């Protein structure tokens, strides 16, 4: 079936530490993956994406790793800050005919302790 799942529902980290959020996906044919951040009362906000022909992509303080062999994604946040506290979703882009849709996991709550 279609599913993108997360290993840990809640992650608590100390301010300044690095955070790692993991995600498993099920569709080996998916060629595009996105991480979103969602703060309370807001819509998902794009963080970083990666295409299936890559295994690593870096942004500002964030890195996404893709392991197609085991269908696993991870999001690494360096020097985690209180403003990083939110729910994080990985999403898998699936082509459907002439369209496409995002399949989201359930999300991981990141709590940053000061």
């Amino acid at each position: 079936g279609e599913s993108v799942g997360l290993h840990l529902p809640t992650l608590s980290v100390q301010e300044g530490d690095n955070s790692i959020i993991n995600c498993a996906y099920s569709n080996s044919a998916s060629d595009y993956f996105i991480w979103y951040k969602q703060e309370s009362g807001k819509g998902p906000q794009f963080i970083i994406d990666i295409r299936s022909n890559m295994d690593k992509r870096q942004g500002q303080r964030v890195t996404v790793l893709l392991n197609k062999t085991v269908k696993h994604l991870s999001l690494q946040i360096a020097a985690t800050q209180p403003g990083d506290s939110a729910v994080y979703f990985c999403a898998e882009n699936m082509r459907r005919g002439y369209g496409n849709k995002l399949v989201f996991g359930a999300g991981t709550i990141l709590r940053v302790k000061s």
Partner: protein
Amino acid sequence: DAGVTQSPTHLIKTRGQHVTLRCSPISGHKSVSWYQQVLGQGPQFIFQYYEKEERGRGNFPDRFSARQFPNYSSELNVNALLLGDSALYLCASSLDTGSYNEQFFGPGTRLTVL
């Protein structure tokens, strides 16, 4: 430039009623997608429209319908509301329906069905 806008922000309805939710995409974006996000879960794909044509439909009953207008704005309609329809309804816009198109989300409409 304004981001994706949605109206209303909050809505309370009773079972059996119908509801219309509205979305205005980012200027220049021709594709709009709708997602339902139940509390504690990731968003679930409902519809995708491109150039006024439906390009995809998720696993939702026929009570859910949508359309896209010539100015690329969109409406999501839900008839015969059920308690389980209570959710955050998210609209996302993208340039088109290509695989690597980033989808930008609006703030959502919070629907409560009593």
